Structures are given as C-alpha cells and as structure tokens.
C-alpha cells in the first residue's frame, strides 16, 4: 500500500517535473489566395513524434508543448505543405497563409507528402467531399451537386429519380440532419429531388457522418451532413458563374476591408419553364416551373480575438399551372455567429440560428380559391467551446437550445368557397442538449474520441392534445395553456470512436453511438414529397432511438496514392414509425392515431477504394446491406424489408486529365431495386377490380443502373505578353478563366423504373404491369467563368 502511494506520488512529481514550462503555439491557417479559413488542416511537430493539432471549423489551432526550438510542418489537402522552424520560449501566435496547389485535380504530387489522414484520424463512418471534386463529376442537366456526389459514396443511397432525400445505412430520409452553417435545412431538394438546394459555388466544406457522429451533433438517427459556406474572398473581388441549358448561377465575393472582413453572395435560378412555352401541349404551355437559391454571408474580424459572421440562405420552388393551381415550397435559414478567443487555449463560438421550411398549395384564384399550407420553424441558440488542454487532449463542450414551431395544416379559403376546413393546431416544443467530448491520443498509436450528449425534449402548449386507444380512435382531448408542459423526454447519448494505428499504412477503427430523434417526418407515400409534414414527439409519439456499432479497417497503398477502407456496421432502432393500413395522413388533426410503432435493424459492409492523385483519379465503392422493420400490426408481425433496402449498391467514379485543359469524367452506378409491395391476386368488389396483397415489400423493383459522362474544356489560362523590359514574350496568367462542360446523363439510355402500376389494358381487358421511367438520355452544355 505504501509502495503504491509512493509510486503514484513519484509519477506525479516526475510528470510535473517534465511538465515544467509549457508554452502555447496558436493561430489561424488561411488560404493565401482568398483568405478563407482552412479547416481540418494539420500541424505536426517533427521533433516530437505524434504531437500535433488540427485546425477547428474556423481555421484555429492550439498546441501546448514544452519550451524549445522546433521544426513544424503545416499541411492541408490541395495546399502546399510548409515547414518552418520556430523558437518557442513564450506563448506565440503564428498565423499562416497557405498557397494552393495547382488548380487542377490530380496534379502529380512532387513532394510526396503523406496524406494519410484517413488512416491516422480516429474518425470513422465519415465521408468528406472536396468541394472542388464536385465540379468535375457529371450530374443531371450539368448541375454540379454535392448531395448527388455524396450518394456515390458507400453507405449513402440515393432515393432515386423523382424522390427527394437520401438514405444512410438503412435509415429513412427524415433521419438525416442537413446543416448549412449550423442551420438545419428541412427539405434539401428542389424539383422533387432532381437537384439539391446547395449551390456548390458557395460552399467550402462538406462532411457526412454516417451514424457515429461526435457528441456535438444530435437529433437525427442516421447521419449528419455538415455543410460550411465559404466566407468570401478577403483579398480581392472574385466573380464566378455559369450559364447552362437548365439553370444559371452567379457568385460574387469581395473583401469588406482587406484581410479583415469579406462577403459572398451566390444565386442560382432554373428556367425550365421557358422551354415549356415552346411545347405544343396546351397543358405544358401554361405551366410555371422554376426554382431559385440565394446564399449570402458576411464576416468581419473585430480585433485579434473576435470575429463575427452573418449568413443566410433563401430558396424557393414554384410549380403551377397559369393561375388555377400553384404549389410552392422552400427554406429560409439565417445564422449569426460570434467567435471569441478566451485564451490561446480556449476557443468559443456563439450562434443564433433561424430555420424555416414551408409549402403552400393553391387551387383557383381570388375569391374562388383554396389554399393549404404547412410550416416548420426553429429558433436555436448554440454555444460551443474547444479547449486545447495539451498536445494529447482536446476537449469540446457546449450546448444548444431549440424552440420548434410546427404548423401542420393552415387553410385559407376565398369568400366564394362554402365548405369549411379548420386549421390543424399549431404545435410547439423545446429541444435542448448539453455535450462534452474529448479527443485523446495515447502513445502515438491510439486515438480515441469519447463523449456524452444529454438531450432533452419537451412538448409544450398551447393546444388541444388528443389521446388514443390502441385502434387509433380518439378517446379524449386535454387542453394546455401557453408554455405549459405536456410531455418531456430525455436521453443520454454516449459516443465513442477509437482508432489503433497498426503501422504507418494501416489502422483499425471501432465506434459506438447512441442517438435520439425527437422530430419525425410523417409521409405515408412510397415516395417522399415536399408535402410530407414534420411532427414532434408528444404524449402519443415517443422519440426514436438508434444504437450503432461499427468496425473498420483502413489501409493505404503506394505511398498514399490508393486508399482502401472496409467498414461494417450494425444499427438497432427503437420506436420506429409506420402507418396503419389505409392511414389518412393529409390534413388530419388526429394523425397521431394513425401511427404504429415498431423496431428496426440495419447492417452492412461498405468497401471503398480511392485514388487521390495522378492524371487518373476516382473511386469505386460497394455496399452490401440489409435493413428491416418489425411491427406487430404489419405483415402479421413478421420482419419485412424496409422500402430502402437495397442489397447491392455499387458506384464507380473516374476522372481523367488528358492535358492541362481537357478532362473527362464518368460515373457508373448500379443498385438493387427498392423493396415494393405488388399484388398477388385480384378480385371484384362494387363492380371494380381490386388488387389483393399478401406480403409487405415482398417484391423488388428492377435493378437500377446508369452511366453519366462529362467533358470539361478549360479555355487558355495564359496569354503571351511582351515583357516591358526585355521585349520578349512571356506567359502571364489570365485573370478571366472560363470552361465549357458537356455532359450526358444516362448515356446508354436505360429506362430505369420510377414506378410499376398494375392496370387493366383498355383494349384487351387484361391486367398488365406498366412501368413508368423518367429519363432516357439527357445531354447538357454549360459555360462557366471566373475572374
């Protein structure tokens, strides 16, 4: 016993003897061309192996080490690595502007720097998209789209043509938290899912956490897509844009005060309805079909320790038919943020966030009109801290508080309409969380991120709350006053993720996460629609809970030229929601009685092989998976495949730079069709033939596959100018850059099934299966410029 105590005391004194005089090196890393913060950049002290830091979301880093002189290397993807020698005798602020690498993708890297982040970082289940990659991947109608590009990565499945949303690791479309500068975007799709609302010209970084998100994120079971907008060029005016067949966009960035503040404004609009005007079809001629997006952001650095940002997004889809029918929907988000350096080891960010999603459907006009609308609105206060304890530990903690308002159905009728439909009561709730999480590295072999999130949800009045029996009939209703508590839920969400470095080329990782989801998307249809309504947890609806376990093996080959990863996961879900047979979901004030609760499970293996550098770059991804649900009242209580269960999901993305000016890209995707319910018989009732069904989701849609090709031609970047002194002609970079992009969607014209209907042929009277597919070959041209 005495020996134990004395040993412990000796150790403490010994470590404090070594931890004698520590100093802190901190600062910001930015892009030398534009002044944008570099997030996720790495700082390594070459003399102290394993000691290093990573910049946070605002480009800030902090490293506490013993006094001394060190050789320090700064590196960031697609920037030139820089190594400096710094004498550290006192706390020092060292900011660095980093020079971008050659502009093209895949320039052969002469320095052979180690980009082994995928092996060494403790993060797993994360997909990061380099926004510049997105520019070269061909998408529908030539529109670059980060959400469509994400769907090419393993574990992320597209909902298919004509469907908004995506599925991650077997979860449903409402289980993905999509954040734009910390504001949730409730419907990230335009035009029924053909495009996302994100204009990639305005974006800086996109990260998708496939379930093992760190403790600072919460509220959705399947994934978090964290999207950061660019701050705007702080050095000079920069304008870029594009003109395409279907849409055009323009982005303007400029400094407010050089190197202190800047702004960016980016807008995009489609004009599909202009083409409709040429149609012979009278229905098409009078149609209105367009969408627009507007992103705006400004930031200003006040003194050395403070920075303020304000950003917003506003977008709308409009669809209609002259003035008789109109349908529009869209999001509006706004964020105001304040970064403050409390000390060179404590960085804090305070945010106020606003988010609104609504839709309106209108029939008729003027006095003869009828309008239905629905809306969800959030006001959020968020506080986050990064505390850089020492070179081995970074502590992140904070909390947030959200006030949700749900308006599921608001009705307005013109004075000529006689019948009366009442609004559905507004619902309000408060969702809040506190979290604490530590990133720790041990002995240069282990990296562990462990944390705990405490989340709380309270449904509050005012309102009339129904109670239901097990058949879904209303048994009573209670009235609540303003801010009165109706029901509260809370949960502890542990999050752990660890990586063990086997050698400098490979590592194994594991993670566990528990997540709670308190708001749910009510959608009874086989497709997801803009009219799906968000509902809060309540005295009738419990929060959904997911537990996910994952393991992975990561290995790089050929000096980090090729990255390989294999991840296997298992996710169990509780309180999953589905609907009674024949549930009436639209405009039903008692919709909670139509819901059924069950459990779900999803498991799979994700393989990814990626080539990062060279003339030829790209990746191959394959996911083998299963996702199932079990409800006592559905399918006789037997497990059935969820609609988004797709056994195989395969993508190949290839980009090839022929020369400095010509690059070719191609994408091939293949996946098993959705699980679907088809009839197994037919009978006649009330004189009409009716389909007879036996199992739920017992059949499959035909397999989906598609090839997209794209060609980008960059116009000359240099011009020959006579040197004023020597008279010789020299190459000078042109300020105005432009390129042409040609793309073909579905190059071999496969008719992929959007839906299959069983109909009676009007001539022969026989029932036949009719498949509707949306696209054959769709070519597109666009012109892009930047100066």
């Amino acid at each position, binding site marked *: 016993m005495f020996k134990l105590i004395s040993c412990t005391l000796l150790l403490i004194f010994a470590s404090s003897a070594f931890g004698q005089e520590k100093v802190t090196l901190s600062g910001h890393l930015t892009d030398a061309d534009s002044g944008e913060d570099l997030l996720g950049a790495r700082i390594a002290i070459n003399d102290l192996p394993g000691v290093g830091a990573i910049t946070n979301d605002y480009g800030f880093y902090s490293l506490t080490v013993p006094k001394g002189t060190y050789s320090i290397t700064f590196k960031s993807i697609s920037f030139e690595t820089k190594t400096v020698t710094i004498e550290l005798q006192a706390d020092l602020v060292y900011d660095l502007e980093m020079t971008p690498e050659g502009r093209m993708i895949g320039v052969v890297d002469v320095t052979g720097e180690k980009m082994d982040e995928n092996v060494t970082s403790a993060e797993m289940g994360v997909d990061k998209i380099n926004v510049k990659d997105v520019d070269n991947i061909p998408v529908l109608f030539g529109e670059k789209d980060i959400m469509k590009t994400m769907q090419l990565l393993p574990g992320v499945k597209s909902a298919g043509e004509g469907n908004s949303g995506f599925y991650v690791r077997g979860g449903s479309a409402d289980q993905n938290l999509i954040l734009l500068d910390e504001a949730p975007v409730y419907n990230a799709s335009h035009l029924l899912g053909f495009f996302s609302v994100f204009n990639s010209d305005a974006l800086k970084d996109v990260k998708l956490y496939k379930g093992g998100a760190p403790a600072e994120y919460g509220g959705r079971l399947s994934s978090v897509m964290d999207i950061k907008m660019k701050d705007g060029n702080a050095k000079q005016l920069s304008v870029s844009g594009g003109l395409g067949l279907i849409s055009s966009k323009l982005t303007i960035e400029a400094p407010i005060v050089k190197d202190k503040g800047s702004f960016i404004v980016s807008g995009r609009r489609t004009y599909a309805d202009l083409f409709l005007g040429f149609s012979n079809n009278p229905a098409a001629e009078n149609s209105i079909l367009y969408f627009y997006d507007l992103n705006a952001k400004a930031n200003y650095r006040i003194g050395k320790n403070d920075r303020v940002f304000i950003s917003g997004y506003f977008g709308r889809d409009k669809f209609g038919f002259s003035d008789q029918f109109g349908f529009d929907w869209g999001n509006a988000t706004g964020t105001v943020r304040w970064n403050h350096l409390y000390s060179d080891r404590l960085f804090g960010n305070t945010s106020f966030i606003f988010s609104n999603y609504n839709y309106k*459907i209108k029939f008729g006009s003027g006095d003869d009109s009828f309008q239905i609308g629905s809306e969800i609105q959030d006001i959020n206060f968020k506080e986050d801290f990064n505390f850089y304890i020492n070179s081995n530990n970074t502590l992140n903690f904070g909390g947030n508080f959200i006030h949700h308002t749900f308006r599921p159905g608001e009705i307005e009728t013109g004075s000529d309409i006689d019948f009366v439909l009442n609004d559905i009561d507004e619902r309000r709730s408060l969702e809040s969380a506190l979290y604490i999480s530590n990133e720790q590295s041990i002995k240069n072999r282990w990296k562990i991120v462990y944390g705990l999130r405490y989340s709380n949800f309270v449904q509050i009045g005012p309102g009339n709350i129904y109670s239901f029996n097990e058949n879904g009939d209303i048994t009573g209703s209670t009235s609540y006053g303003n801010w009165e508590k109706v029901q509260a839920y809370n949960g502890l969400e542990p999050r752990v993720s660890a990586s063990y470095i086997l050698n400098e080329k490979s590592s194994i990782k594991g993670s566990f996460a528990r997540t709670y989801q308190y708001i749910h998307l009510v959608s009874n249809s086989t497709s997801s629609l803009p009219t799906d309504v968000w509902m809060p947890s309540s005295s009738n609806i419990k929060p959904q809970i997911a537990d996910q376990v994952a393991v992975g093996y990561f290995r790089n080959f050929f000096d980090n030229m090729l990255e390989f990863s294999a991840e296997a996961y298992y996710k169990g879900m509780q309180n999953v929601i589905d609907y009674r047979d024949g549930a009436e979901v639209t405009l039903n004030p008692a919709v909670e009685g139509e819901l059924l609760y069950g459990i779900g499970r999803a498991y799979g293996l994700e393989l990814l092989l990626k080539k990062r550098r060279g003339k030829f770059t790209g990746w191959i991804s394959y996911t083998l998976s299963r996702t199932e649900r079990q409800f006592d009242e559905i399918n006789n209580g037997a497990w059935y495949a969820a609609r988004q269960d797709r056994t195989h999901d395969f993508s190949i993305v290839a980009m090839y730079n022929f020369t400095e000016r010509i690059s070719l890209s191609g994408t091939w995707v293949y996946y098993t069709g959705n699980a679907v319910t088809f009839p197994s018989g037919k009978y006649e009732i009330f004189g009409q033939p009716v389909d007879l069904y036996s199992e739920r989701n017992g059949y499959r849609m035909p397999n989906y596959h598609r090839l997209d090709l794209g060609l980008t031609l960059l116009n000359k970047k240099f011009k020959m100018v006579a040197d004023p002194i020597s008279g010789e002609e020299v190459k000078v970079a042109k300020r105005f850059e432009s390129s042409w992009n040609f793309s073909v969607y579905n190059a071999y014209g496969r008719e992929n099934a959007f839906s299959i209907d069983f109909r009676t042929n009007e001539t022969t009277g026989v029932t036949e299966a009719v498949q509707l597919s949306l696209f054959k070959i769709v070519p597109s041209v666009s012109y892009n410029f930047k100066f």
Partner: protein
Amino acid sequence: MNRMKTLFFTCVLAVSFFGFYSCEKVIDVPLNDADREIVVEAIGRNFLGESYILLSRSGSVYDDGGFERLSGAVVSVTDGDGNVFIFVEDLTDPGRYVSFDFVAQPSTQYSLSVNVEAQLITATSSSLSTPVLDSLTYINTGGAFGGSPTDTSYLVFYNFVDNVDETNFYQVSAWVNGVKDDNFYIGNDVLGNGQLASAPLFGTDVRPKDTLFVELLSMDEAAYTYLSTLSSNINAGPFSATPANPVSNLNQGVGLFSVYMVDTMTIILP
C-alpha cells in the same frame, strides 16, 4: 383528400417538362399467386329489394377471364331481435343472393352468416339513424381547373345536417343521367359533429340539362374503414401509400358486410 392528392400529383408528372423524356412500357413481372380467396360483398339497404350478397372468388393478377361466382351457398342475415332473413340465389345472376322481405331498420345490429365451399363466413354491422339530405346546390365553374372559359360546367354541393348524438360515417354517390359515376365520396363527422355538412362532388362532371341523382348513405365505422382503405388501393400510384388489403369486418375472406341507411335526391341542372 386522398383523391385530391393523387390528382394533383398526377398533374405534376403529366405537366412537367420531364414529360418530354419520361416513358411508359409494359413489362413482365412474375408474381406469386396467393391462395384464392372468397370474396363477400354484402350490402343491406333500407329500401325493399335493394339488399344483396354477392359471392365470388379472387383470381390471378394476369387472368382476364372475369371472376368466378360461387353458387349454392346458404346465406342469411339476422337482426338484433333474432329475426332471420334468408337470401336466395338469383337464378338470372349466379352468385348474387337476394331477399324478398329484408329492409334495413335504423339503429339495429345485424349479423351475416354465409356458408359456402365448406366455410362459414360471419360478420356484424350496425345501422345508424336515417340521414336526411337537405338540398343540392351548385356553382358554375366554367373555366376553372383547365377548362375553357366558354364551357358551362357545374360543381354540385350536397348539404345535410349531421346527427349530433352519433358518431357518423357517410358515403355519397352520384348518377349523371342514369349512369353511375365511378367516384364515391366518403367522410366522417369528426370535424363537424351535429353541424351542417356541405361538400362538393369534386370529380363528378355535370353539364347543363343533366339529371343528377345523389344518394347519401350512413354507415358504421367498420364499413367506413373498409371503404377508405379500399379507395387508397384503387387510387394507388407512385405517390400513394404502401398498398395493403382493405380492413375487412368479415371473420375470413375478403370483402365487406355493411348495412346502410340511405336518402336520395334528384336535381336537374339549368
């Protein structure tokens, strides 16, 4: 509401410019044939001779031969007082069983018994009070919803007062010039118990000089649940709910037993 949703989403697909590119084709989809089910369509009404029970069998999805009717069944309906009404097969329409004396009475519970193919199928249904159709009114909607402005077409509204003492479920059907409109409208009194209900016959196309015959039926909850789940089935399309069999009140087989109290009214448009 379901119909409206399907209607305008069908418009979405039809009108959108993707219509230039989209295509339909008939494909071959092999299906596992389910066991053949016995189908019972048993309707009681409050007018003599209008009640019937229709027995048939389900077929395979791709069968085009019509549906096999079942003859030789023993069919009866018993009311709450124990009176038994036998239904005999109509020899001119095999599989259809009728009664000479059955007239549905208000607020009575009935039970059905069908003995066919060595199976006993039973069900119960309650009738409610007889509804009263107050009036049929109309507005001229010429030019709306994509029609030409010189056309005169009418949108007819039915009006009646709900019985405040009961939880009611209704169905409204229409015949234009003697031809039955395939659409039917079902609703309940959750939002307007005891109040005047007025709603349009949305999908029924009525022109000047047409004779419109409207029937208002009152039914019990089991029948309403069956009909609303049936209508989702019939209107199934790419944007509808996962299809499932309608919720039936029979102890086995598919179909419905329902006793309706009916009121009717006729209007001739100018």
